[in-house]
């Protein structure tokens, strides 16, 4: 679990750097942009009310996304530590699979770029950014498990 938390922290660091420097959307931004438009307006406004209005809802989404990454990292770290053979291959395969699923599920939202890259380039940069984030997690987890 300890290795998973360390890998999750490295992942958060990478995602935040990519957002600040290259305008690559955070995972929470991609997911909300992809799926919020499909929530009917009455339900959408009702949900905002439940969470205390737009600003509090956004703050909740912002902070909980990082906590969620930490919790997910810890869980994956725990599960990974129980693998006895081919741990790195399984982790790398899982990350690659998750990346492909994310590309398919989030595709239209990948064209966003918060530093103004044109849509075609933005899609490539966002896809590459997600791959980097996944790779950082796997490599950090492997290194942390072996060395720490």
């Amino acid at each position, binding site marked *: 679990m300890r290795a998973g938390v360390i890998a999750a922290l490295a992942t958060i660091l990478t995602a*935040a750097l990519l*957002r600040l420097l290259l305008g690559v959307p955070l995972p929470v931004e991609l997911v909300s942009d992809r799926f919020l438009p499909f929530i009917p307006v009455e339900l*959408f406004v009702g949900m905002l009310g439940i969470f205390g209005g737009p600003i509090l809802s*956004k703050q909740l989404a912002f902070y909980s996304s990082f906590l969620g990454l930490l919790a997910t990292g810890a869980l994956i770290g725990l599960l990974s530590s129980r693998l006895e053979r081919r741990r790195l291959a399984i982790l790398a395969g899982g990350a690659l699979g998750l990346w492909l699923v994310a590309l398919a599920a989030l595709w239209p939202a990948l064209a966003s770029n918060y530093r103004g890259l044109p849509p075609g380039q933005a899609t490539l940069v966002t896809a590459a950014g997600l791959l980097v984030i996944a790779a950082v997690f796997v490599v950090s987890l492997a290194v942390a498990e072996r060395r720490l």
Partner: protein
Amino acid sequence: MNRRTFLAGATGGVLALGSAGLIEALRRRSVFGYEGIEVIGAGVQPITPNDKFYVVTKNLIDPRVVRDRWRLELSGQVAEPMTLAFEEIANLQAVEQETTLECISNGVGRGLMSNAVWKGIPLRELIGETQPEAGARRVFFHASDGYTHSTTLEKALEPTTLLAFEMNGEPLPDRHGYPTRLIVPGAYGEVSVKWIDRIELIDDDREGYYEKQGWKAQRVHTMSRIDVPVKGSSVPAPVEIRGAAFAGDRGISKVEVSTDGGDTWRDAEIVYHASPLTWALWSSPWRPSPGDYELVVRATDGAGELQSSVVDDTVPDGATGFHRVQVRIEA
């Protein structure tokens, strides 16, 4: 403590500190500090300063577009697709146009409405250059942050629909869509797409971000608001009742005030109304006796249509109803 535990703790600590620092940097850039700020009451000015202009956004953190990277693409059902850099747009013949924007989520008596002088290019100049094909009937707008919205080709070709790049004499602030945004008079603010990077002429009915949710933003309801005195206040006579009224691109022809809960009405003086595209600021002197009163306001648009008295919330097409303010006049 063994070596592995020490290394794990040190590594985790460094990463946690780094992550916390970057999360804090993101939070400082976030919209948490400025989204939804309303200017109402005595502070309302004819032209809203840029830093007071309301902001409503889908984003956690608004874009900070690097202008040299940014391009505007015009494509879709056109014979001559175009891609323009900012300088090519800024070098075109620009116009200045004062226009008020109101958020569709602006409730009765609320302040998600502001007025500015925008400088930009009539969108029809750019669309005309692309030679729209006969089948094109709608325009779909895309923004850097993934936001989308549509409007009719007819609306996009109106001379007052602008691709703006200046706001009150300054380059657009980041939060207002730098380097360019749409200004679509007559529609609620969500149609005036910020950080726009693609304009696509289409022959279908595809829907944008909020349109998919069910918002109907193409026509602003006529509204009016009492800014002074504020609801629940206790004030000495005489009172200068003041407020704002707005009717999209139809202009305001009359504002009426009632001091008896709507039983009788008298005309207010419109003290500022730069054009049919802007809000009207109004005033009405009042010398009441001490006591409790309910003030009500209603406006008539430029086509002579009285605003709706039906109380309805903002979902799905904007709020309606008269603004009512209870006040006590001091003895």
